[in-house]
């Protein structure tokens, strides 16, 4: 979104990951969002997570809808194909893309207007279908690009910058995702990179529908007193149930944890998540328990963050459809077309 070319110089001493890529190889264009925007922190966390996981940048497809959040895929993974589609329709475009080529990593970036209002249906149905994706909502409770209207995730009773009180009930996307069967559900805060980066990494490694709701304050329109999505409010009310480390190809024994404080979760691809418990009773394998926990804490005005639910043995849409391992977009007439002999038989059966 800018004419300013970013310098391509790499410091020779820049650290490289297992594939030999530097941090810079995961960056995109310069952000055009407001200085201090929570979304830019999420962009930085995505870059960090992809670097840490040693993903080939061009093997990621970044898909978004419309809004401030949906502009961000231009600001990371500059060598990936991006698709800034239609307002609220990222989930369907991503689903189609995923069906065409199951070998890429699909990163869906959306906002609260995009996913909780105009695209609420598409959000719900992509989760229901178990599309293998990482679905990130950059949730600021407000329409930024159109200057400050409430979104559907704005809490009832919260105040807009102009002083209007919101009288509508809020949609909690995490609660909905849990109810609809998402197999990886997390919430985090754009101001807490140490929590967010491993959550994104674990979500990318998860096979199935991964959903992360990231509270991301809007510096321009929703960072005032009376807002429940401001930096101050979220910091004060953040109730993290756990923090995690994603271990890929590393021996978990080598990581030093105090006994009894860590729960290891092995994902489908062999990667491990080390969950450092903050709330000792919280069980991220208990979907119903998570729903109750969330509801209770929401009633107290607390924002529960962390890895809230994971099913390490989840199936995805391709398994449901029993599709071939070869990406469908590589199949040609020799395998797709039944040919003239079959057609003659079909003709004969129609006489």
């Amino acid at each position: 979104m800018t004419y300013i070319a970013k310098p391509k110089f790499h410091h020779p001493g820049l650290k490289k990951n297992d594939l030999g890529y530097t941090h810079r190889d995961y960056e995109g264009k310069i952000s055009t969002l407001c200085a201090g925007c929570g979304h830019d922190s999420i962009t930085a966390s995505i870059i960090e997570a992809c670097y840490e996981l040693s993903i080939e940048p061009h093997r990621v497809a970044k898909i978004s809808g419309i809004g401030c959040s949906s502009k961000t895929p231009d600001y990371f993974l500059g060598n990936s194909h991006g698709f800034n589609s239609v307002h609220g329709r990222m989930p369907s475009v991503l689903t189609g893309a995923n069906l065409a080529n199951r070998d890429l990593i699909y990163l869906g970036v959306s906002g609260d207007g995009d996913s909780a209002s105009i695209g609420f249906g598409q959000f719900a149905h992509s989760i229901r279908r178990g599309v293998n994706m990482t679905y990130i909502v950059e949730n600021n409770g407000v329409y930024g690009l159109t200057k400050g209207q409430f979104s559907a995730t704005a809490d009832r009773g919260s105040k807009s910058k102009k002083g209007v009180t919101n009288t509508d009930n809020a949609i909690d996307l995490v609660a909905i995702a849990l109810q609809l069967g998402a197999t990886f559900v997390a919430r985090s805060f754009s101001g807490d990179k140490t929590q967010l980066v491993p959550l994104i990494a674990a979500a990318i490694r998860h096979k199935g529908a991964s959903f992360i709701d990231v509270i991301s304050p809007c510096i321009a329109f929703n960072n005032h007193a009376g807002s429940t999505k401001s930096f101050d409010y979220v910091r004060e009310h953040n109730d993290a149930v756990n923090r995690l480390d994603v271990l890929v190809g590393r021996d978990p024994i080598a990581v030093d944890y105090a006994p009894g404080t860590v729960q290891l979760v092995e994902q489908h691809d062999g990667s491990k998540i080390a969950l450092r418990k903050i709330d000792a009773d919280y069980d991220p394998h208990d979907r119903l328990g998570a729903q109750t926990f969330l509801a209770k804490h929401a009633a107290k005005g607390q924002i529960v963050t962390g890895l809230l639910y994971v099913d390490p043995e989840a199936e995805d849409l391709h398994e449901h459809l029993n599709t071939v391992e070869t990406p469908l977009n590589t199949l040609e007439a020799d395998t797709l077309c039944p040919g003239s002999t079959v057609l003659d038989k079909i003709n004969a059966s129609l006489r």
Partner: protein
Amino acid sequence: MSDKKPISSVNDFVVRFANVNGSGSASANEMFARAILRHGVPVSPRNIFPSNIQGLPTWYEVRVTEDGHLGARGGVDMMVAMNPQTWDKDVAGIEPGGYLFYDSTKPMPSTKFRDDITVIGVPLTAITNSTYTDPRQRQLFKNIIYLGALSALLDMDPKLIEQLISEQYKGKEKLLSSNVHALHLGRDWALQNLKCPIGLRVKKSDRVGDRIFIEGNSAAALGAVYGGATVCAWYPITPSSSVAEAFTAHCKRYRHDAKTGKAKYAIVQGEDELASIGIVIGASWNGARAFTATSGPGISLMTEFIGLSYFAEIPAVIMNIQRAGPSTGMPTRTQQCDIIACAYASHGDTKHVLLFPEDPAEAFEFAAAAFDLAERLQTTIFLMLDLDIGMNHRLCRPLKWDDAKQYDRGKVMTEEMLEEGRDFGRYLDVDGDGIPYRTYPGTHPTKGSYFTRGTSRDRYARYSEEGSVYADNMQRLVRKFETAQDLVPRPLQANAERPTKYGVIYFGSTSPAMDEAIGLLEERGHQLDRLRIRAFPFHSSVASFLAEHDFVYVVEQNRDGQLRSLIVNENGIDPVRLIPILHYDGTPITARFIAKAIGDHQDHLKVTPLRKAVS
């Protein structure tokens, strides 16, 4: 009893069955049509049905036509009146001298009949009840019993019907023999109690040839299989649902890996039409051949995405099985009413490619071609069917496929081409045809990636709101649309025997009625050259045809003359020279309607038919 001579006709009449939907009559009625085909006599059947599951009236009309006129004829020579609900209207609809076949178990007052028709009563309920005890059997076999009685009345060969039954119930011996038994129950009763045959008769002929009998929706779905579609996303809507259902059935049969049993396709029933087209666009963006099937209301919902497909240049195939609009309109009635909605779908300046198949054979051919066109032109291709083609069995030439054919995947820059250092500009017109190169996601680690967006951008896909950059791109899209003119199926012209200043333009399902109408108009002394339009954008031959004729009739099945508007708009033609002939009551257009409308107009234009002038 009749004061009008009963109609006498061999292999040229219309039988209409009036039934209640959900009564199981459809398969018996279809068997009647197929049985006549087996006599070597062409038929053209049509379902007339309500938007309902059970209890409302339905009709099935079979036009028996030795001459092969496959359009609807209009009028009914024999009514098989099985629905008390519609009795009065059904009886009133019979041509003078026609025949009424009914269940005479319960006596009817004479006021319920007409004296200018032949009434044929068969005690169907009585025969059924004395033979069967199970209520469901009674209902189903009653249909076969009337089929048996009709076979005697119309002088049909029972062996041919038995053959059909044996093909249908192959391997289900019990069902087979009970159906044959029911057939003969009806047939024998008619032979013993009625004067057989009546004036309407089926005589063996050889006019069917190697033609096949298939529904347009099934043929289009098969075209998608042959055309290499791997992703189908759809939302149920009449009359298009059977496209996706047929695609599913064809794929189950022909698209599973022989070794692993895995599917070489993915079908998703979307939550709505927006999701369906979104999935198609996502899949096509990522290099798979994808399509959706829908009808008018679905098109309305899809328009935002169609604009994205046009502007961001992403292939998509949309099969629109048109029904009568606007709004919910008449969901089970046919029209050609989405021409403008599809040609200019979405906000801003847009134009889309439309294909107009005339029958299932072309629906197959054009459906397969639509995927080549979509990838070649990187835009949405509409396959414009309608309910009349889509949901009725139509006799048509056999489907053909050339095994040497490879798919045209369009301009795709590969990893090798990028490695060679080819300049990649996603919206760069390198060949002067308006068509740029695209790359699939994941092609190359450092080259060829771009950001797809519905916002304005320059030739290298970089965001820009510069007026000149925007206009440059919009002009290229016009060039691309001009390129499309020569890629889409060309119009087909058929000239009258003698040179004439009058022409007629028509398209799609109007075709068989138009062909027949030409004969009727010739009988009235009117000569017309014909042009069947098969696609939009219009080929240059459309403009030539308009230039060669003083007046051109445009025959279409909508109220507003939508194709005519499109022709006027795109060719800058004086509208006075294009005379609309419009049929839009939801029934299929007939030759009688066209011939009368055009004939009256010709008379009004004070054209003296040649025959009168010389006599």
